[in-house]
């Protein structure tokens, strides 16, 4: 019973980490797309936008590592 419960949460952990891994890929796509968007149009607010996209990616990676340790 306990072993099956541990197995269920282990599987849940794998799914959660898989989802967070996919989100990291999505965050990386956002960074690349922001770079393309900034090249398309520059009006003076590009640096904060780039920083936000990078911070978002770093945050996604940090959450993945945190989930790896906590779950």
């Amino acid at each position, binding site marked *: 019973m306990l072993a099956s419960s541990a197995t269920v*949460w282990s599987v*849940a952990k794998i799914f*959660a980490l898989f*989802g*967070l891994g996919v*989100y990291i890929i*999505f*965050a990386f*796509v*956002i960074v690349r*797309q*922001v770079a*393309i*968007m900034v*090249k*398309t*149009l*520059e*009006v*003076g*607010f590009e640096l904060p*936008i780039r920083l*936000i*996209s990078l911070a*978002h990616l770093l*945050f*996604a990676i940090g*959450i993945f590592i*945190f*989930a790896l340790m*906590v*779950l």
Partner: protein
Amino acid sequence: MPDIYISEHKPVKKPLLHVTHKHKVHKKYPYSPLAAFMYYPRKADFVNKDPEEEVILILRRHPITNLGWIIVSIALLFAPSVLKFFPILAFLPENFQLISVIGWYMITTAFIFENFLSWYFNVNIITDERVFDVDFVNLIYREITDANIDQIQDVTVRLGGAVRAVFNYGDIIIQTAAEIPQIELQAVPKPDRVARILRELRVEEEQEKIEGRVR
């Protein structure tokens, strides 16, 4: 000879274009890169811009059009606080609950950022030579349409509805003789002023043709 008729003195409308007074325009009009109506922006560069091309107007959708996703974002941000009253995640261990809430906020952040990027980078640019329509349909699909000012055949301003009338924004449909027959500027602020600027640009292009000037 007595005067038969004396016409009333009508004040002449000053043209909106200030092509010879750009430095004065900068002082007169406040500039913000987050504005939806940027007249003679101080800094403006975009792909396919000619070195001699001068950006006159950069337009975005009126900020009020963002109200929908802003309200949704606020609801998403406050949603986890509902868990105190409706503990729908109570079946999960605490560590999974924590990761779930953090993941929720990450998705909310991505939602807000994506909507902001969609509003910020979907612009219409009017230069002294061309009209551009830059559309980022989604994160991975971009479409840029441009037409020369001298190819514009018709400009239609469409402003309808209570909200649009109150906040003074509407659509501008530009019929062109180019391959793309129509360029639509959606939900732009001050559409009448934009139409007037386009009219003046067309007049100036015709004048350049008559005088044989290239630019």
